[in-house]
């Protein structure tokens, strides 16, 4: 997603929140909210909810594209077990890559967000623009640029080779044969890069809202800087961290652009499989089953995570 998305997330987080208990506007009837809601909700119902149900139905079809698909009650559930037996490595890899990218994003984003929110002074709004500016260019064009940067005879790879860092990375199974492009590392780097602002901006928003006097109070009570960071700043920034990890992990887990452009078939993610099953293999039931499982997996992870993190303040 592009810079605008990120911009809005930050705008939204900065707005002060007001309790939902508003008196009903005078002169509006009980039906007014439903009238306002209905066109948008209808659109979401027809083009989000119905398609999701259709995805489930399609995943239970029997037959093939040539002979035509039919639905026989209670559906061909074997598609699910077959698809999962065959493609569990890609599922695992998607969640692993997305998880790694989320961790990298957090490590990179926290210091930047901290600096912008608490140490940048008059440069704050300029720095915020700089954070989202790279994302004004097309997602695909940016990702293609990484192909140039990480090219085998490029400066980055040569430097890392001469410092023997590629040997270390190869030992960690992140890269192969002194190259970065077409290795798992390239895909994770691409994912990290593409979703970084989704981590920076929510963390920035929570740190910016934090009352600076709380840190002072902690220090007045003889907390060391480290203790103040760990016991005051970090917990107060948690809503931003939670929102940021979700905004990074969800799109990263379903992404197949980075794996396609920066990786090879050997490091394909579940998104690549779904896309191939639809357009190359044209096995619609398998593709739909994989897609449906991905959705369920992500929804259950999100709910579990939000419950654990205990924050109501999502998107």
């Amino acid at each position, binding site marked *: 997603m592009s810079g605008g998305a990120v*911009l809005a997330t930050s705008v939204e987080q900065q707005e002060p929140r007001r309790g939902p208990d508003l008196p009903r506007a005078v002169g509006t009837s009980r039906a007014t909210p439903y009238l306002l*809601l209905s066109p948008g909700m209808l659109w979401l119902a027809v083009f989000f909810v119905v398609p999701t149900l259709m995805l489930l*139905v399609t995943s239970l079809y029997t037959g093939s594209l040539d002979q035509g698909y039919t639905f026989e009650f209670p559906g061909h559930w074997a598609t699910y077990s077959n698809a999962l037996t065959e493609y569990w490595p890609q599922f695992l890899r998607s969640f692993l890559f997305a998880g790694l990218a989320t961790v990298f994003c957090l490590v990179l984003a926290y210091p930047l967000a901290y600096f912008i929110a608490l140490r940048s002074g008059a440069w704050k709004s300029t720095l915020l623009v700089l954070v989202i*500016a790279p994302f004004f260019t097309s997602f695909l064009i940016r990702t293609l640029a990484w192909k140039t*940067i990480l090219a085998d005879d490029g400066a980055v790879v040569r430097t890392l080779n001469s410092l023997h860092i590629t040997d270390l990375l190869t030992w960690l199974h992140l890269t192969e044969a002194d190259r970065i492009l077409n290795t798992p590392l390239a895909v994770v780097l691409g994912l990290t890069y593409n979703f970084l602002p989704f981590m920076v901006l929510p963390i920035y928003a929570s740190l910016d809202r934090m009352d600076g006097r709380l840190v002072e109070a902690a220090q007045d009570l003889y907390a060391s800087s480290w203790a103040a960071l760990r016991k005051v700043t970090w917990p107060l920034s948690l809503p931003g961290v939670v929102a940021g990890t979700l905004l990074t992990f969800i799109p990263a887990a379903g992404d197949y652009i980075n794996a396609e452009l920066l990786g090879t078939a050997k490091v394909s993610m579940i*998104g690549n499989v779904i896309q191939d099953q639809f357009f190359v293999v044209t096995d619609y039931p398998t593709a739909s089953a994989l897609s449906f499982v991905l959705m369920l997996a992500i929804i259950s992870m999100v709910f579990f995570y939000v419950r654990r993190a205990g924050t109501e303040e999502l998107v």
Partner: protein
Amino acid sequence: MAVTTPSSDSSSMSVRRRPRGPVRWLRSRLIPLVGLLVLLYMFAPIFVVVLFSFNQPSGRFNYQWVHFSTNAWTNLCQVGGMCEALRLSLLIGVVATLCSVLLGTLVAFAIGRHRFRGRSGANLMVFMPMATPEVVMGSSLLALFVGMNVARGTGTVLVAHIMFCLSFVVVTVKARIASLDPRLEQAAMDLYANERTTFWKVTFPLVLPGIVGASLLAFSLSFDDFIVTNFNSGSTVTFPMFVWGAAQRGTPPQVNVVGSLMFVLSLAVVIATQVVRRRRSRV
């Protein structure tokens, strides 16, 4: 984004307390350094995109520097199909923005201003598309269109774009509505403005910046979307679809020119809105 003045607490704190201890040193020196490095990392591809728009590639792929040329900038539409794709993406972007902003603003007013049965359900409905990976949304819509025998093309792309932009519009406008001071409307009513006048003279102008922000957001989401579009476009080629195709067949430097132009134009829009906002807040 809101231009907030730095809190006086944090700046006075750093002045009053001399840095001491290793963590203090880390915070005062290391954090700005890491922040700067992260920004450099974020800008590296932009630098490459702009640089390689001035390249004269030797083969079909524009991944290696050969020599300087302004050919791509002066012959932008020479590449077959690119400018048509660009035009289509702009058109889809504008239509998807208008529709999603209209539908989304109504929903935002309903959720933001009213208490009613099913409000949390409506909130969940708005949240769900944002929590769903694009590949799932794209394949679900494809399953629907295939199941209903709908031919894929510009129309199906539009339908999909309006759907995923809608949630982002609702969230953005709703936040703006939530930040309004109810006393302004009460004041208008106290001065004998009726509801309609109050809405159009007070409420709506105050919500308008949120609607403008939502429009920019919706446009950029639609313009840059690849995954959902790829599933539902049939033979229609939007600009991201063109770039994807080019990535397999060979990328002309003209693609980089468009990337550079997008960067410069959006940056100009953001800077302009910042300047306008700053002027307004000064008056």
